[in-house]
């Protein structure tokens, strides 16, 4: 009898940990505790700075993905948007040929152009999905191909540097990048938890038909989510471009699976209706911790790829465990 009782209390504790918003953060703590002793340079201030610098842009893109996933969609085009924004910004403000070259307004206007480019692609995706009822997976897949192709075409494969220092500082100086990411993160958090638009996003993700019957402008909400995703990808493009001090059409081309992986590890559902800024933050942190530690261990890219796959699988297993320990079937 007492066995059953302890088992129940053990389960209750497990459930408490599993259901906490901070679950993935606990996972991070455990991971650091296990890995740090074997990993030279892992627990240094310098490394923390490195980690932060790489985490911030990924966090910003993943936030956009979170919004789209909450509505039950998916945005595969974010990485291409990063590439496109990177070169549009660079074309506009590089010191040699840009129309903003050497203008004092180069940084703000250039960044504005990048955000506008992101919003444009997001708006295209959203319009195709809402107005023409095309499946998000295919729409964003096609724009992933098309936008990235167009970006490479636009520059004839060249990368563009000699960008204004003020612009490079946005991504290059970790403190500024941190401020940007914090502002973005807090705004999205407030939007999701406190604003009408945020509640609508969840409602649309849970059940678009019910939302429509309840007077929610469903198409507008979905369109908004994709535009947000495009704009946030553009913000990430600003950070990445600043870090590299160069506009490149293939910037960020390889991080798509990281973006989706991190978001889902955080606990955002692929079926809509579930997702939070904090979850995504922790998901990104976890993925980057794994990445960073394996890098420090100087493991080969192949091992890293395998481990990343295993980590995503483990996170999904834990998530499925969470849902099963959750409210009983009836």
């Amino acid at each position, binding site marked *: 009898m007492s066995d059953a009782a302890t088992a129940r209390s053990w389960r209750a504790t497990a459930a408490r940990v599993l259901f906490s918003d901070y679950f993935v953060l606990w996972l991070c703590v455990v991971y650091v505790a296990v890995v740090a002793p074997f990993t030279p340079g892992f627990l240094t201030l310098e490394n923390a700075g490195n980690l932060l610098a790489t985490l911030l842009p990924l966090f910003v893109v993943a936030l956009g993905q979170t919004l789209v996933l909450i509505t039950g969609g998916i945005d595969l085009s974010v990485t291409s948007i990063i590439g496109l924004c990177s070169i549009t910004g660079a074309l506009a403000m590089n010191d040699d040929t840009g129309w903003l070259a050497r203008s004092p307004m180069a940084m703000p206007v250039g960044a504005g152009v990048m955000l506008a480019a992101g919003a444009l692609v997001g708006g295209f995706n959203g319009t195709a999905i809402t107005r*023409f009822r095309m499946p998000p997976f295919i729409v964003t897949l096609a724009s992933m191909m098309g936008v990235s192709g167009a970006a490479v075409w636009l520059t004839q494969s060249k990368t563009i540097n000699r960008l204004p220092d003020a612009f490079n500082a946005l991504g290059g100086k970790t403190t500024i990048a941190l401020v940007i990411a914090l502002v973005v993160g807090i705004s999205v958090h407030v939007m999701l938890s406190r604003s009408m638009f945020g509640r609508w996003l969840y409602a649309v993700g849970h059940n678009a038909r019910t939302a429509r019957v309840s007077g929610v402008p469903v198409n507008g909400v979905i369109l908004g989510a994709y535009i947000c995703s495009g704009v946030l990808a553009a913000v990430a493009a600003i950070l990445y471009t600043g870090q590299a001090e160069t506009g490149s059409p293939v910037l960020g081309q390889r991080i798509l699976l990281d973006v989706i992986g991190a978001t889902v590890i955080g606990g955002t559902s692929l079926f809509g209706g579930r997702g939070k800024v904090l979850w995504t933050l922790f998901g990104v942190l976890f993925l980057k911790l794994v990445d960073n530690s394996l890098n420090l261990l100087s493991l080969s890219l192949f*091992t890293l790829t395998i481990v990343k796959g295993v980590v*995503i699988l483990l996170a*999904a297993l834990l998530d499925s465990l969470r849902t099963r320990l959750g409210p009983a079937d009836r």
Partner: protein
Amino acid sequence: MRPRPSSPGILVLRQAPLILFAAIVLLFGALAPKFLTADNAINVLIQAVPTAIVAVGMTFVLLTAGVDLSVGAIMFLGGAIAGKLLVGGQPLPLALGAILAVGVAFGALNAVFVTRLRIAPFIVTLALLFIGRGVALTITQTRAMNLPDSFLQLGATRIAGVPLPLMVLGAVVLTAQVVLMHTPFGRQIYAVGNHPANARRAGIRTQRILAAVYIICGFCAALGGILSLAQLGAVSPKFGEAYEFKAIAAAVLGGTSLFGGRGAVFPGTVLGAVLIQSIETGLVILNADPYAYPVVTAAVILIAVLVDSVRNTALSRLTQRRIRVDA
């Protein structure tokens, strides 16, 4: 109370993918007459074979409202292992067997995670994509491996004048079509895709069906890999990359729904694969600007899906139940 019988408008709408396909072929034909030759047609068909076979497997998975992102990784891993075996002097049949075994094993692994551990197919197969590619890269150490001529001969063999790849494609499509349309298993796949919970209640062993489609998909990916290698003659580290998207696009262009329960291998998926290949071939024949390829391909996919969605809206309006007979 019956819906109206098919009117000419409905007939046209139902054939929309075919019409679009014809339009694209004719457009390329008008721009480059060489495109419309029999030689070129066979050429396009042969090149479309690997995509078509992988997409056939993908169709099975999509019909259950799942997805398999690991097909490209399966192709690469199978090729890597086969390459190692062949370079090590093992006979060709063993290598071919190994590729197919890898496909089935990966399919089974996907199946276990999806059915037993109840993880979303998107995540499972995404993770296995990483793992598969990682293992294959470790095996090859990213080197390209050249396969012996015996492998290339597979691709060049003709039986009774028909190229072997086309024979294989024909066999795969025929089998898939019969299985989907004329066996209890096939019809049950459609039922599971339509409503999994109801399917379980109706007494269908849904878990078995799901497991089976992932294994079939793995097998088809491996088979597609073999045929692709038979044309390439080498395994490179980029082999199979982005094939998952290509296969999904082919299936969706052929009218298969990502939400399960709707779609067909023939003509649907096969037509989709040939369409994608036609675009690429057409652009080469036109000697188009290399930069334009991805943009044009994306545009055609978008147009095809747009046509499909407009068609579905129109069809559902036309075949809507009527309450009364009005003029």
